[in-house]
């Protein structure tokens, strides 16, 4: 499953990041910033940081504020999914870096 090819994990990860950038109704700069973990204005910041740090503590109010800011539930969905994908891809990159260093050089 991990062989380099069209079905490899790195290709899936890259496709996921590309899909977030290439589709969606919300502002592209916002989605890119959320995906990268860069600073975004409130009320996005509060929700995005909460999803990254402790998603179990997200509140109705945080989500409602982003629905209002984007103007739709679909927009809020994009922000939530993008924040989650950013956290996951950050971890995939960390794993790839650690495994790459471990296999490139003797311990």
């Amino acid at each position: 499953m991990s062989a380099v090819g069209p079905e490899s994990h790195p290709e899936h990860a890259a496709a996921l990041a590309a899909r977030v950038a290439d589709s969606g109704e919300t502002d592209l700069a916002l989605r890119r910033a959320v995906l990268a973990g860069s600073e975004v204005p409130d009320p996005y910041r509060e929700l995005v940081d909460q999803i990254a740090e402790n998603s179990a503590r997200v509140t109705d109010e945080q989500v409602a504020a982003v629905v209002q800011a984007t103007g739709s539930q679909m927009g809020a969905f994009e922000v939530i999914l993008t924040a989650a994908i950013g956290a996951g891809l950050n971890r995939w990159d960390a794993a790839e870096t650690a495994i790459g260093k471990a296999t490139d050089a003797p311990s």
Partner: protein
Amino acid sequence: MRLPEIDRGDTLKHRVLIAMISRVSGLRLPDAARVAFYHQDFAGPVLGAWTQQTMRGPSGWSISERELMAAAVAAWNSCPFCVGAHGAIAVRGIDRRTVNAVLNDYQTAPVTDRLKAALTFNDKLTRTPNTLSAADAHTALDAGLTVADLRDAAAVASIFNIITRYANALGFQIPSDDDFDKSADMLIKRGYA
């Protein structure tokens, strides 16, 4: 569910599908499946394809082991929906007491050194990804994992660091144990894509 549009479906076709699947399966279609039907022009289908390959594709890990890894990530991220959903599949191939022991404290659970090493790597990857180093990968490889095994385990952790976050943020409704069990049948038969 904090976004009612996802709950009811965003198109007539999806609303009919949600109602039909719920009726045929005899359970409320879980929120994870409702999300998969929602706004399909966005990232969901691409994430679904990676999840399908990671959880059901060829791997040195059994399906139950991968589902247990997913449930462990869910436990670390305090996501009761994903603990229930993926724990219910893990027990199809691994003794329920062992699954519970892993979810309680994998370091003392009666599992192979190989699985414990993967869980140790994924624990750090989940909780403190910025501290993960080559030494952590070496430790896992020294425990008998191949590089492919380790990458496959890390893919499970990465994907479930996504899924647990949106499940929590969207406020997924928690099914009963019986409904988790029925949903496990569906996820085994139909997969994630």
